[in-house]
């Protein structure tokens, strides 16, 4: 700031010396009184002053710009960290509704939009203020009328830029919103590129792109014109003031009221202002942009976070590892839009025991799995782990005690090693390799060019469906949490491999409390209790044998998977269409 003030201050004095120099030069012409030597000395003085002031101005401008940019960068770095932290902290229901493309745009582009403002915008504004205020004092003290005329453009610009700011802010917001729509469309297209190709839908996708793209273009044009109108008008008002100054000043010189040097000083000062005046337009534009970007950026930072914020809670103390659901109700969404997904779910998995869950798609199995680590908040009833309500223990300790495999496996763009060690980055080589072996991945990994260091994921070797799932299993295994939830973890794995994984994992972790969700009965039939879920309700429960004896839905599933049974076929013949 100080540097800004000084550098603009120095800038102010330069015209004064230019004026002096001109006056001196003029002095000769008029056959002035002074001797040659004196004039010579005066010229040198002016020259040195100009040179010195310029260098000083440059030095201070450098310091000012450097500190300005450092300020930007420091603020940007802090904002970056805060955004990252916030994104990780925001709960699952927020992420359900947010589009990744939108979040990324905010975290990257909007950040850039804000980052450039403090230095360019703020500093320019301050500089302009100093120039104008300092200049007005200098000029008005020299000649009040001429000074006022020279500065007559200032109020015009002030009003015009205020109007432009409002318009531009609105248009920037609109443009950013439309750009987000376009971004999301492009991102989905690229993520689903195989579907696009498989259905030869390129033309279809281009049509969609064009629709969004022309919406963006249209508002971009509007914004452009708003900016151009205000900027050129500001430039115009400046030159009008210049013309007026020349006119009035010229007349004054003619009338002998001021010297040509004074007039030159005025005009030189105005010339110096020309650049900053041009920049006001830019500043207004970048201010409008920064404030819209800022609004979008801070919307995320300020988003309320019901689950993860709030008072500090005691850590979960695992004594046995017992999981209990007591009359749990749950629905996704808020208020009106909430659809009930689970109703009155009650069960109890004793320490070291296994619970199996089966049921048709959408019956709520994964939802149960998500409620235990409190990714979502139950809407009724409660969930207890070793008699502690999950809502009354710290999230960190809770999620640290619940491990397993999610239904969607995410592979990071990193080495196989880092992928397996994702949940436990402190583990050693032996641990990672053991986890790889248990998940039946070791042989595959050994044949990769870089073994465990091979890059996988988007940039490296793409994995087959089953390989991806096994990476998740290895990752889940390495955590070795007392409570383990396997959500359809072997759907893409053949029976042979599945059995070997099962043997290795069971052998290793027999003491864990597990919840196994699967469509393949072989994975759940050995469980201590099996729940059959349908539309969010438990409709059958018991051990494998009990359920078979019940001759209900579970028994039907069983006979379908264990070879066709005529009774089921007959039942199906009635329900099947046509």
């Amino acid at each position, binding site marked *: 700031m100080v540097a800004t003030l000084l550098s603009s201050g120095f800038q102010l004095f330069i015209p004064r010396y230019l004026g002096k120099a*001109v006056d*001196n030069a003029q002095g000769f012409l008029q056959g002035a009184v002074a001797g*040659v030597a004196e004039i010579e000395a005066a*010229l040198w003085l*002016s*020259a040195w002053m100009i*040179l010195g002031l310029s260098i000083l101005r*440059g030095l201070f401008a450098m310091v000012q*710009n*450097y500190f300005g940019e*450092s300020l930007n960068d*420091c603020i*940007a*770095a802090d904002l*970056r960290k805060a955004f*990252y932290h916030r*994104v990780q902290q925001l709960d*699952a229901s927020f*992420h*359900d509704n947010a589009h990744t493309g939108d979040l*990324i745009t905010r*975290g990257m582009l909007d950040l850039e939009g804000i980052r450039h403002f403090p230095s360019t915008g703020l500093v320019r504004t301050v500089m302009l203020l100093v120039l104008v205020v300092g200049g007005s004092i200098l000029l008005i003290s020299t000649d009040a009328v001429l000074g006022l005329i020279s500065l007559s453009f200032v109020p015009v610009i002030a009003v015009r830029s205020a109007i432009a700011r409002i318009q531009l802010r609105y248009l920037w917001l609109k443009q950013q919103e439309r750009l987000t729509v376009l971004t999301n469309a492009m991102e*989905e297209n*690229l*993520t689903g590129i195989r579907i696009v190709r*498989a259905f030869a839908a390129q033309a*279809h996708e*281009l049509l969609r792109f064009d629709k969004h*793209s*022309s919406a963006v273009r249209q508002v971009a044009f509007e914004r452009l014109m708003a900016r151009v109108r205000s900027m050129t008008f500001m430039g115009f008002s400046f*030159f009008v003031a210049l*013309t007026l100054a*020349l*006119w009035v000043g*010229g007349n004054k*010189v003619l009338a*002998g009221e001021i010297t040509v040097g004074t*007039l*030159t000083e005025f005009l030189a000062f105005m010339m110096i202002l020309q650049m900053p005046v041009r920049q006001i337009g830019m500043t207004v534009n970048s201010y409008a942009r920064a404030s819209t970007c800022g609004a979008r950026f801070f919307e995320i930072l300020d988003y309320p976070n019901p689950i993860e914020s709030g008072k500090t809670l005691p850590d979960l103390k695992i004594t046995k590892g017992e999981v209990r659901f007591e009359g749990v109700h749950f629905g996704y969404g808020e208020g009106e839009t909430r659809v009930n997904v689970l109703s009155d779910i009650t069960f109890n998995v004793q320490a070291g025991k296994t619970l199996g869950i089966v049921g*048709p798609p959408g019956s709520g199995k*994964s939802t149960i799995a998500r409620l235990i680590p409190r*990714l979502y908040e139950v809407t009724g009833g409660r969930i207890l782990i070793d008699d502690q309500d999950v809502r009354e223990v710290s999230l*960190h300790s809770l*999620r640290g005690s619940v491990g*397993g495999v999610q239904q969607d496996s995410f592979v990071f*763009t990193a080495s196989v*090693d880092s992928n397996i060690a994702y949940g436990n980055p402190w583990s050693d080589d032996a641990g990672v390799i053991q986890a790889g072996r248990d998940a039946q991945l070791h042989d595959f990994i050994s044949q990769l060019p870089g073994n465990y260091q091979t890059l996988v994921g*988007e*940039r*490296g070797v793409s994995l087959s469906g089953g390989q991806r799932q096994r990476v998740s299993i290895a990752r889940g295994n390495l955590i070795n949490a007392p409570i383990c939830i396997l959500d359809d973890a072997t*759907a*893409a*794995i*053949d*029976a042979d*491999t599945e059995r070997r994984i099962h043997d290795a994992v069971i052998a290793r972790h027999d003491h864990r409390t597990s919840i196994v969700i699967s469509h393949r009965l072989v994975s759940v039939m050995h469980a201590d209790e099996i729940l059959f879920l349908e539309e969010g309700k438990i409709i059958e429960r018991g051990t494998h044998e009990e359920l078979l004896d019940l001759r209900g*839905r579970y028994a039907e*599933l069983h006979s379908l998977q264990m070879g066709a049974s005529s009774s089921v076929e007959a039942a199906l013949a009635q329900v*099947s*269409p046509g």
Partner: protein
Amino acid sequence: MSRGVRPPRGVIGAQVSHDEEMFGRVFDGRVMRRFFSFVWPYQRLLAFALIAVLVFVATQLAIPLVILYAIDHVIQPGAAATVALSSVIMFLAGVVLVNYLANYCQEALVGRIAENVVVDLRRAMFAHLQRVSLSFMDKTEVGRVMSRLQSDTGTLQEFLETSVFAIGDVVLLFGIVITLLVLDAELGLLTLSIVPILLVVRYFWLPHARAAFRRARETNSMANGALAEAIHSVRTVKAMVRGKDNHELYSDLADLNLTTHLRAAKLAQVNVPIVDGLTGGAMAIIVIVGGRMVFSGALEVGVMVAFLFYVQRFFDPIRSLTIQYSMMQRATVSGQRILEVLDVPETVIDVPDALDLVNCTGAISFDQVSFHYTPEISVLEAVSFSVSPGEKIAIVGPTGSGKSTTAALLRRFYDPLSGRVCIDGHDLRTLSQDSIGRHVSMVLQEPFLFSGTIFENIRYASVTKNTADVERAAQAVGAHDFIARLPGGYLFVLDQGGGNLSLGQRQLLSFARALVADTRILVLDEATANVDSYSERKIQRALNILLEGRTAIVIAHRLATIRDCDRILVLNHGRLVEEGSHQELMDIDGLYARLCRLNYASFDDVPSSATR
């Protein structure tokens, strides 16, 4: 900046910071020409814009000249020339007005061209990405491509929009040089003697600055990559409680980014006092030399004043170019990155006289097909089989044995390295890709849905299909019931990737989408892996009717899924090891028979040692 100990295996974001290895380098010499081809369609606008720029610069130059004239010839103390002054003022007012109009036109026109060019570039990139080979897309993070589609075009646009200043400034620069020389050649040359010094300084400074800027950009994209990863993987991060570690790792990245940015800023700014000093030097020369010349009568005062004005105007653009150096750098690099995308080669392309297969019976043959993604790992080796029209065959095998790859080759996502894949006896390479799409539809192993309504998703590209078709398909896969229960039914809006449905439900929709396409050949890659057997059986019965006479390839691990198939192919390590009906394969007692026994046995029944 907390510098604690970081977990040894904790990494976030792709650790590779150079994009260059992925996108080849652009052929540098033609960058300008390539860009120009995007500007060329707007040649009329461009011509007007150039005229406006010239007029603007001319008036910009004229204003000081008029003032100079006024001071020199009109405003002489004593010479009562009020009339002359008025006419000069009138003239100046005219020039100012023209200046205003020209300024308006140039800004509006250049801005318009810039916006259009950027939109066109983005579209060209997007359209190109629709054609580049999947092997490229496989290895490229979506985030990186997105940043080119999005932030690089943004940077370029920002630059182009303000580039009107640059064009004007360059013209102005030349104009000023000429004016200076014309006004007084000697003083002009003296003043311009500053310029070579400037060039020398820049020569030494540029390489350092460039390196610093590149580093800053690299760390930028590393940090952005990590952010994108965090956003995509947030559920895994939560479940794995990596939040705190990641936050620390990310802080390191952000700090690194900060350090490199600060260094770049430092390098950009050292230039400022040098340029300012030189400006001062030039003015000092004018004051002394000009002053003496005025003294000796060789120069008029007005000319000296004009010189002082022009010198300021001369260095202004140089100054602002220095200050905005980072902006220019960014724009240049962005331009290159955009061209790199446009230069990614297409490897799977239609041959010039590609056959547009109109009617298709649905016969498929694989003839000694070999394939690998990376030379180190062979995926398919000499696989041969044929499927007659209307036949339903199953492909089974351990994970990673090449089943999905076989499906990908049939849809010509890739070309086989040797051997042929044929539909109706035509090598796929001789058919147009669009026509393959009309005859083959797929359910991919990973169900992918777009955000939008369920209706739009099921219908997808088959825009000629109506609601009844969509409902029929949904009914066949047993999705109609749950859709009907959703608020809005078929108009229920899916979140990104169908996140507000369960995985099984997503799979059903992706299945229905393939049915609506109504093709002769249907490839089902684990289409019902996340669906229970009861629902699956219902689907199978419905399909038996719906797919009567069509060719189907069914890939599955759960053997109940393939019970209706006519023939079973067994893949192992990329080789076709067994082929035949269920009974035939059971009789051979090979891999299939073992998989079969395991499928139907509980984990407790068969000790795993016996399965080896």
